Protein backbone atom coordinates (compact mmCIF):
# COMPACT_ATOMS: atom_id res chain seq x y z
CA UNK A 1 0.00 0.00 0.00
CA UNK A 2 2.77 2.44 0.93
CA UNK A 3 4.68 1.53 -2.28
CA UNK A 4 1.56 2.27 -4.32
CA UNK A 5 1.17 5.64 -2.60
CA UNK A 6 4.86 6.45 -3.12
CA UNK A 7 4.61 5.57 -6.83
CA UNK A 8 1.56 7.79 -7.24
CA UNK A 9 3.37 10.63 -5.50
CA UNK A 10 6.43 10.10 -7.71
CA UNK A 11 4.36 10.26 -10.92
CA UNK A 12 2.66 13.47 -9.75
CA UNK A 13 5.99 15.10 -8.79
CA UNK A 14 7.57 14.16 -12.15
CA UNK A 15 4.50 15.52 -14.00
CA UNK A 16 4.61 18.83 -12.11
CA UNK A 17 8.38 19.25 -12.59
CA UNK A 18 8.17 18.48 -16.33
CA UNK A 19 5.31 20.99 -16.70
CA UNK A 20 7.38 23.61 -14.88
CA UNK A 21 10.38 22.97 -17.17
CA UNK A 22 8.16 23.10 -20.28
CA UNK A 23 6.68 26.45 -19.22
CA UNK A 24 10.10 27.94 -18.48
CA UNK A 25 11.33 26.87 -21.91
CA UNK A 26 8.30 28.52 -23.50
CA UNK A 27 9.10 31.80 -21.73
CA UNK A 28 12.76 31.65 -22.80
CA UNK A 29 12.24 30.79 -26.48
CA UNK A 30 14.73 32.39 -28.82
CA UNK A 31 13.67 34.88 -31.47
CA UNK A 32 13.83 33.10 -34.81
CA UNK A 33 13.99 34.83 -38.16
CA UNK A 34 11.31 33.85 -40.68
CA UNK A 35 12.60 31.41 -43.32
CA UNK A 36 12.96 32.44 -46.97
CA UNK A 37 9.76 32.73 -48.98
CA UNK A 38 7.65 34.10 -46.12
CA UNK A 39 5.88 37.46 -46.44
CA UNK A 40 5.06 39.80 -43.57
CA UNK A 41 1.32 40.13 -42.83
CA UNK A 42 -0.55 42.82 -40.90
CA UNK A 43 -1.38 40.29 -38.19
CA UNK A 44 0.25 41.09 -34.86
CA UNK A 45 -0.80 39.78 -31.48
CA UNK A 46 0.48 39.61 -27.95
CA UNK A 47 0.80 36.07 -26.67
CA UNK A 48 -1.27 36.07 -23.46
CA UNK A 49 0.92 33.43 -21.85
CA UNK A 50 4.28 35.16 -22.31
CA UNK A 51 3.35 38.78 -22.99
CA UNK A 52 5.61 38.68 -26.05
CA UNK A 53 4.44 40.42 -29.21
CA UNK A 54 4.32 38.16 -32.24
CA UNK A 55 4.40 39.08 -35.91
CA UNK A 56 2.75 36.64 -38.31
CA UNK A 57 4.46 35.74 -41.60
CA UNK A 58 2.82 33.82 -44.43
CA UNK A 59 4.27 31.66 -47.18
CA UNK A 60 2.02 32.10 -50.25
CA UNK A 61 3.45 29.05 -52.01
CA UNK A 62 2.81 26.55 -49.20
CA UNK A 63 0.11 28.23 -47.10
CA UNK A 64 2.27 27.93 -43.96
CA UNK A 65 2.40 30.55 -41.25
CA UNK A 66 5.35 31.58 -39.09
CA UNK A 67 5.22 33.38 -35.73
CA UNK A 68 8.12 35.75 -35.12
CA UNK A 69 8.75 37.13 -31.65
CA UNK A 70 9.18 40.87 -32.09
CA UNK A 71 9.04 42.11 -28.51
CA UNK A 72 11.38 40.90 -25.80
CA UNK A 73 9.36 42.38 -22.93
CA UNK A 74 8.13 39.36 -21.06
CA UNK A 75 5.86 39.08 -18.06
Amino acid at each position, binding site marked *: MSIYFALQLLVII*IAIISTFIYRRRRLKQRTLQPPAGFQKTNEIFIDPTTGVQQQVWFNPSTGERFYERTDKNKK
Partner: protein
Amino acid sequence: MLVVTTENIPGYHIDKVIGHTFGVVVRSRGLGGNITASVRSIFGGEIKEYTEMIEDARKVAIDRMIQNAHAMGANAIVMMRFDSGEIGQTMSEIVAYGTAVVAEKN
Protein backbone atom coordinates in the same frame (compact mmCIF):
# COMPACT_ATOMS: atom_id res chain seq x y z
CA MET B 1 -3.81 35.24 -47.14
CA LEU B 2 -6.33 37.81 -46.00
CA VAL B 3 -8.58 36.53 -43.22
CA VAL B 4 -11.51 38.71 -42.14
CA THR B 5 -14.58 38.26 -39.99
CA THR B 6 -16.67 40.50 -42.25
CA GLU B 7 -18.72 39.49 -45.26
CA ASN B 8 -16.96 41.89 -47.64
CA ILE B 9 -13.44 43.24 -47.82
CA PRO B 10 -13.26 47.00 -48.44
CA GLY B 11 -11.14 47.75 -51.52
CA TYR B 12 -11.58 44.24 -52.87
CA HIS B 13 -14.29 42.42 -54.75
CA ILE B 14 -15.04 38.74 -54.37
CA ASP B 15 -14.23 37.18 -57.71
CA LYS B 16 -15.10 33.60 -56.81
CA VAL B 17 -16.51 31.78 -53.80
CA ILE B 18 -14.74 28.45 -53.47
CA GLY B 19 -16.46 26.99 -50.42
CA HIS B 20 -16.11 26.54 -46.70
CA THR B 21 -12.78 25.96 -45.06
CA PHE B 22 -11.97 24.93 -41.52
CA GLY B 23 -9.19 24.03 -39.12
CA VAL B 24 -9.85 21.84 -36.11
CA VAL B 25 -7.72 20.84 -33.16
CA VAL B 26 -8.26 19.03 -29.86
CA ARG B 27 -5.72 19.64 -27.12
CA SER B 28 -5.19 18.46 -23.59
CA ARG B 29 -3.12 20.07 -20.88
CA GLY B 30 -1.50 16.92 -19.50
CA LEU B 31 -1.27 15.59 -15.95
CA GLY B 32 1.21 18.14 -14.58
CA GLY B 33 -0.65 21.08 -16.12
CA ASN B 34 -4.00 19.85 -14.83
CA ILE B 35 -2.65 19.43 -11.30
CA THR B 36 -1.08 22.90 -11.20
CA ALA B 37 -4.23 24.38 -12.78
CA SER B 38 -6.38 22.69 -10.11
CA VAL B 39 -4.18 24.16 -7.37
CA ARG B 40 -4.34 27.59 -9.04
CA SER B 41 -8.15 27.40 -9.30
CA ILE B 42 -8.38 27.12 -5.50
CA PHE B 43 -6.85 30.58 -5.15
CA GLY B 44 -8.65 32.10 -8.15
CA GLY B 45 -7.38 34.36 -10.92
CA GLU B 46 -6.21 33.44 -14.39
CA ILE B 47 -5.47 29.79 -14.99
CA LYS B 48 -2.36 30.29 -17.09
CA GLU B 49 -1.99 26.60 -17.96
CA TYR B 50 -5.37 26.61 -19.71
CA THR B 51 -4.84 30.03 -21.33
CA GLU B 52 -1.67 28.55 -22.80
CA MET B 53 -3.52 25.49 -24.07
CA ILE B 54 -6.29 27.55 -25.70
CA GLU B 55 -3.85 30.04 -27.22
CA ASP B 56 -1.88 27.20 -28.82
CA ALA B 57 -5.11 25.61 -30.03
CA ARG B 58 -6.24 28.91 -31.57
CA LYS B 59 -2.99 29.25 -33.48
CA VAL B 60 -3.09 25.67 -34.75
CA ALA B 61 -6.77 25.97 -35.77
CA ILE B 62 -6.07 29.15 -37.79
CA ASP B 63 -2.95 27.63 -39.37
CA ARG B 64 -4.91 24.56 -40.48
CA MET B 65 -7.83 26.60 -41.77
CA ILE B 66 -5.48 28.75 -43.87
CA GLN B 67 -3.62 25.70 -45.20
CA ASN B 68 -6.94 24.15 -46.24
CA ALA B 69 -8.01 27.39 -47.95
CA HIS B 70 -4.64 27.57 -49.70
CA ALA B 71 -5.05 23.97 -50.90
CA MET B 72 -8.45 24.96 -52.34
CA GLY B 73 -6.86 27.79 -54.32
CA ALA B 74 -8.24 30.67 -52.26
CA ASN B 75 -6.38 33.87 -51.50
CA ALA B 76 -8.73 35.11 -48.76
CA ILE B 77 -11.16 33.88 -46.12
CA VAL B 78 -14.28 35.87 -45.26
CA MET B 79 -16.75 35.44 -42.39
CA MET B 80 -14.14 33.68 -40.25
CA ARG B 81 -15.46 32.38 -36.93
CA PHE B 82 -14.25 30.34 -33.96
CA ASP B 83 -16.17 27.64 -32.17
CA SER B 84 -15.15 25.63 -29.17
CA GLY B 85 -16.22 22.54 -27.32
CA GLU B 86 -15.15 20.23 -24.55
CA ILE B 87 -14.31 16.56 -24.92
CA GLY B 88 -14.12 14.72 -21.63
CA GLN B 89 -13.08 16.96 -18.75
CA THR B 90 -9.57 17.89 -19.77
CA MET B 91 -9.67 18.16 -23.57
CA SER B 92 -10.68 21.22 -25.47
CA GLU B 93 -11.68 21.44 -29.11
CA ILE B 94 -11.27 24.62 -31.16
CA VAL B 95 -12.59 25.03 -34.69
CA ALA B 96 -11.79 27.97 -36.95
CA TYR B 97 -13.97 28.16 -40.03
CA GLY B 98 -14.89 30.55 -42.78
CA THR B 99 -15.58 30.91 -46.49
CA ALA B 100 -12.65 30.51 -48.86
CA VAL B 101 -12.78 33.05 -51.68
CA VAL B 102 -10.71 34.54 -54.44
CA ALA B 103 -10.61 38.29 -53.80
CA GLU B 104 -9.20 40.84 -56.18
CA LYS B 105 -8.32 44.49 -55.60
CA ASN B 106 -10.76 46.98 -57.12
